[in-house]
């Protein structure tokens, strides 16, 4: 590891990288602060900007957005009781009561410090665990790689919607869409319907613009008119945090960071799950559980440290196995692949300097997030009140410009529109979009490994149960499915049970 650190530092500490980190952090925090705009939407919109960049500045820019998005979501949660991003919902429970008690700046400061700690903790976990997992991943052959893909898809299908079966159907749809274009092994065209442009397949970024960004615009139809107003006078407290409060923050912050890392490593789970889990753990372990929900500093620290600790951990399965930990990092995979960086052990050996520069960069991203948060939080707070009338068409224009610029072709804009309509219909049927995204990302890898394994075994499916690793992954899949189903049955029973009388 040490042999890579010094050259990686040389690659990382350039003016260009530091500039892109800061631009990313600023954009991420601003976007996440606006309710309704998610981090995934922001990464999709700005992905085309990275196409002309090399790997390190491109990834630094996207990681800046990703990490700062974790903190930005808490700004509106604390100020106006509306989480900017879904994972800031747990922060809202105690952040807003603190703000109402006249301690807005203090609440924002606690969220910032906890987020930074969680982010750096997670980056260190990535730095130390990443290469070890990659070594393990190098021992996997084609059938095992196929099982890894199935494992990732199963978990994501299971946890991202209300129904696991609907999740599996969505994942199948995503995998089928990834089959459009030339066959990866024979180069025959598939499902092109005579459209020559489809021979190259569908670009991931273009599909995502439709699936996640444009559909959010269509969902404005569900919102009632009205603007969000914020009283900036709320920011006039001195933001002081007492020694006693710092002491009380320490334990939930460390525990939240640990929970965030553990949850983040599991594909399909994300910042929302981590922050709620950490919040409930902090409450159960606190000496003052009665303060939770009424402005507890421990509650804010636990939720914020956990949701930012997910950021580095989600990169572990992405960089080592090619399995994205969540939807946002799935998009980052295309930024890596455009620069010829394919996940796996080879990434840590042949491209070790670049890889370590990216992992070290994550620490730098969190430091700049802390600095920007300390200086620019009043600006982040002001954007909360940008009216929807202005924001909506601007996002559409960004989406169209982004879709066009991928291949400099209006055909891609049309594809994005088709995916937007598809996503809207699927939303009406309560079908989760994240398994489709994972299907699109993992499609080629899953199919290639599936077919190669069958070729090796001359068509015999026994190859998928031929090694210890295969059995381990089968065991993990069964365990994951069992746990998910048990959780869902429990939820259903809890809903069906008659409410307790007060």
């Amino acid at each position, binding site marked *: 590891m040490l042999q890579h650190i010094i050259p990686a530092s040389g690659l990382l500490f350039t003016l260009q990288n530091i500039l892109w980190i800061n631009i990313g952090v600023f954009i991420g925090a601003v976007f996440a602060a606006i309710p309704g705009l998610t981090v995934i939407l922001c990464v999709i919109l700005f992905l085309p900007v990275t196409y002309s960049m090399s790997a390190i500045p491109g990834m630094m820019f996207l990681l800046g957005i990703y990490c700062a998005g974790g903190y930005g979501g808490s700004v509106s949660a604390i100020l106006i009781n509306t989480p900017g991003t879904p994972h800031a919902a747990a922060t809202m429970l105690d952040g807003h009561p603190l703000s109402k008690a006249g301690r807005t700046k203090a609440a924002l400061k606690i969220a910032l410090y906890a987020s930074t700690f969680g982010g750096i903790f997670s980056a260190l976990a990535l730095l130390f665990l990443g290469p070890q997992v990659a070594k393990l991943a190098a021992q996997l052959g084609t059938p095992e790689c196929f099982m890894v893909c199935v494992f990732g898809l199963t978990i994501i299908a299971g946890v991202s919607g209300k129904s696991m079966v609907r999740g599996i159907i969505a994942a*199948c749809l995503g995998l089928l869409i990834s089959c459009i274009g030339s066959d990866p092994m024979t180069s025959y065209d*598939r499902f092109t319907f005579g459209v020559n442009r489809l021979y190259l397949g569908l670009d991931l970024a273009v599909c995502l613009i439709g699936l996640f960004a444009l559909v959010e615009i269509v*969902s404005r139809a569900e919102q009632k008119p009205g603007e969000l107003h914020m009283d900036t006078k709320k920011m006039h407290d001195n933001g002081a945090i007492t020694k006693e409060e710092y002491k009380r923050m320490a334990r939930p912050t460390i525990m939240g960071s640990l929970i965030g890392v553990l949850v983040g490593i599991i594909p399909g789970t994300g910042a929302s799950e981590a922050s709620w889990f950490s919040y409930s753990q902090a409450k159960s372990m606190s000496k003052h559980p009665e303060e939770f929900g009424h402005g507890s500093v421990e509650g804010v620290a636990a939720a914020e440290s956990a949701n930012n600790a997910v950021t580095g951990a989600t990169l572990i399965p992405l960089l080592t196995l090619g399995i994205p930990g969540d939807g946002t990092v799935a998009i980052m995979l295309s930024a890596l692949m455009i620069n010829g960086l394919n996940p796996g052990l080879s990434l840590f050996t042949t491209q070790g300097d670049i890889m370590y520069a990216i992992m070290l960069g994550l620490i730098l991203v969190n430091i700049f997030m802390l600095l920007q948060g300390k200086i620019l939080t009043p600006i982040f707070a002001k954007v909360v009140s940008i009216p929807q009338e202005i924001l909506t*068409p601007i996002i559409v*224009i960004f989406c169209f*410009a982004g879709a066009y610029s991928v291949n400099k072709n209006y055909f891609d804009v049309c594809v994005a529109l088709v995916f937007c309509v598809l996503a809207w219909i699927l939303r009406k049927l309560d079908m989760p979009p994240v398994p489709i995204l994972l299907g699109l990302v993992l499609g080629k890898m899953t199919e290639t490994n599936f077919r190669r394994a069958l070729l090796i075994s001359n068509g015999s499916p026994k190859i998928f149960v031929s090694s210890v690793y295969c059995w381990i992954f089968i065991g993990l899949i069964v365990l994951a499915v069992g746990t998910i189903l048990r959780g869902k049955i429990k939820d259903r029973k809890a809903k069906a049970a008659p409410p307790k009388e007060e």
Partner: protein
Amino acid sequence: MKGKMDKLGEKLKGKEIRIPVDLTVGVVFFLFAVVVMLLMPSQVAVSERDVVNGRAFPELLMWLMMACCAGLVIKEIVKIVRKQPLEYKTINLLVELKALIIIAILIITYVLCRVTDLFVVGAVFCALAFLIYFRCKKPLYYVITVGLAVGIWAAFRFLLNVRF
């Protein structure tokens, strides 16, 4: 015009359609999988020499999809027979009409960009159309949004060298 739209809105406001989600998903995607299977021979060329050809993976997916759909449909039929409540999704017609208007704005923006081959034309239309959709009466918002639309086009055109 505004009055007519308000009247139409009021009429549609309370109109809702309830669809049994799992049953609908089961039927729709089962039919989808069947159509894909029927299209497969014409859409995926294979060689007889291939041990595992290009149809193997999509076929596997469609069989899995059909199995899941069949499971959903059977589960819902059992629920109906046992007179247990089904899971419904409520679709509000007013929301769907608004969604259709937004989709129409997006399509017209795309058509304008494509026909004129000038992205800025579509961008300005999009800005104005959404402001009208939101019934915005503030002239300043029009100036800001149109200005930003032109600004984004200029940034992509001159800074990122995207020729459109």
